């Protein structure tokens, strides 16, 4: 007779409650899924899921309102911060965030994001920068690097024709109403963990009523970059990070204690 050995199983990894249990439409190797997950983990850890409203963009994350297990909306292209403002002004006790790509936030929606910050709007923005328009088929984004080939910059982006890639974190850091502005990357586990801490700081800034917060996340688009997922991660590190340095660009005095708390 054999004796059964009871091994206690311990859950070490599961779907955050703030992430809906549905398959996403994202391409293989795209880092949107990671971005979604760490945002959801932060919402869980802060215990705010049931009082959070997420506003999605038009772009690849157009269906984010379906993937976050929170109240959600899809705004018109570029206008997520405007819609978020309306929600937050009426419900200041709720947590309101926008989740936007580089076309949505840095091209068509640049006025809305800048004015959300100038108002010190107490919302959080997750800005996914993958240097290309994904959903419409790989056109040049405001964040496309010089020389980067896209369908609308054949032969590579030319600075004389279409100017320079916009550094949003630096731009937003210069705005007085910004409380916390950071840029992180999703190209390896260490950076993902660092990104998650920044996202937590951003939401804590909102929960403490300190003003506008934004975390820019350098992300991949293997499909439209026409490389493998592994090559895409390597390209973020080798080409994007040098132009878009990682770090905290604006930390208001009142935000600093929130970063030490953990």
């Amino acid at each position, binding site marked *: 007779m054999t004796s059964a050995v009871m091994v206690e199983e311990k859950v070490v990894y599961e779907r955050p409650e703030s992430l809906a249990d549905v398959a996403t439409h994202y391409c293989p190797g795209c880092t949107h899924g990671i971005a979604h997950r760490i945002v959801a983990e932060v919402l869980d850890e802060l215990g705010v899921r049931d009082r959070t409203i997420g506003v999605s963009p038009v772009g690849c994350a*157009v269906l984010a309102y379906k993937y976050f297990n929170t109240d959600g909306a899809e705004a018109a292209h570029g206008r997520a911060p405007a819609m978020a403002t309306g929600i937050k002004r009426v419900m200041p006790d709720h947590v309101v965030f926008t989740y936007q790509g580089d076309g949505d936030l840095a091209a068509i929606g640049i006025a809305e994001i800048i004015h959300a910050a100038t108002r010190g709007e107490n919302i959080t923005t997750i800005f996914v920068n993958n240097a290309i328009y994904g959903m419409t088929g790989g056109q040049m984004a405001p964040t496309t690097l010089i020389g980067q080939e896209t369908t609308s910059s054949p032969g590579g982006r030319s600075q004389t024709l279409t100017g320079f890639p916009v550094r949003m974190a630096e731009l937003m850091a210069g705005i007085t109403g910004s409380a916390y502005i950071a840029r992180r990357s999703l190209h390896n586990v260490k950076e993902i963990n660092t990104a998650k801490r920044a996202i937590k700081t951003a939401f804590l800034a909102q929960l403490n009523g300190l003003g506008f917060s934004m975390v820019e996340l350098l992300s991949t688009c293997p499909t439209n970059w026409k490389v493998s997922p592994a090559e895409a991660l390597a390209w973020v590190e080798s080409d994007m990070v040098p132009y878009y340095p990682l770090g905290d660009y604006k930390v208001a005095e009142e935000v600093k204690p929130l970063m030490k708390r953990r």
Partner: protein
Amino acid sequence: MREFIDGAEAIVRGALDAGCDFFAGYPITPATPILLHMVRELPKIDGVAIQAEDEIASMGFCIGAAMTGCRVLTATSGPGISLYSENIGLAIMGEVPLVIINVQRMGPSTGGATTTAQGDIQFMRWGMSGGYPVIVLSPTNVLECYSLTRRAFNLAERFRVPVFLATDKETVATRTTVNISAYEQVPVRERTLTAAEAEFIPYHVAQPDEVPPMSPYGGPHVVRFTSSSHNERGYLTKNPADVEGLNRHLVAKIDEHVDEITLVMTDIQPGAETLIVSYGLTARAALEAAELARAAGHAVSTLVIYSLWPVPEAAIRAALDGVRRVLVAELNLGQYRREIERLVRDDQQVIGVHRVDGQLISPHDILQKGELL
């Protein structure tokens, strides 16, 4: 020679053959292929093609370039037309010739980005403050994408007004075999300019329906341009006579020349009691429905309208003559039917054939609604 192309390529070819040398736009499904073709093609002929930061800026680029003398094209879809609206109003006010391709998709809002529709028919005409007219042409197939784009450029120059090409996702994105020799060659109408030695009074017209000649920025004259109500010299004014003169002119220059713009195709059958009216993509189903009905022994006439705005009332009335009922087929809930309804006699019945489920209207849909099976 035959080739296998889609509507986007035909539009771009038509634009280039019409002398287009400037394009600005913003990526939007299903109009993006036109942007991509122009970004590739225009630099080859020293033209300029720019992807702007949004549609508002795109139309601003276009107006600026048109005022320098360029022949200007842009392309978008419904949500982009929403953002163009402010600057289209500016182009109407400043009498700026330009061509706007509207690759219609299902609305409202983002709607169905890859779903075809004909939902912007009234929006293109009435989507700007003040309600002043534009011209709207609508091709039914790839060949007409070419010829009507060329006509659109000519009409823009003739009337100094924004001209829409109302296409749709299916027409622009579906490849078709076409015979190159079948492209209708439309002579290029050059811009009418004020002679260098003549005095330039930018908005002077002797009669309200006249179109004033232009003078480009950087040319022989000082050129001023305003979004406000202005007198003939282009200066802002509140003088009632000047304001009224301007506003009546903006209407008269189009409305008194509908015959120059009218483009329809009629196929009248003797004794037909039914007329099928259609435009754009849906015309293809309507013409096929008519053939099937005739084969089944029904006398049926057809009217395909290529020039939707201004409404070709005389041509529509002529086609209505003698029929008892009118079938209007369109991928919306009756937008152009309204125009037909105001033109019929009391004893003529108008029946709409409409779909807004994202599917195309089939010949069968028309036959069934018209009890022609």
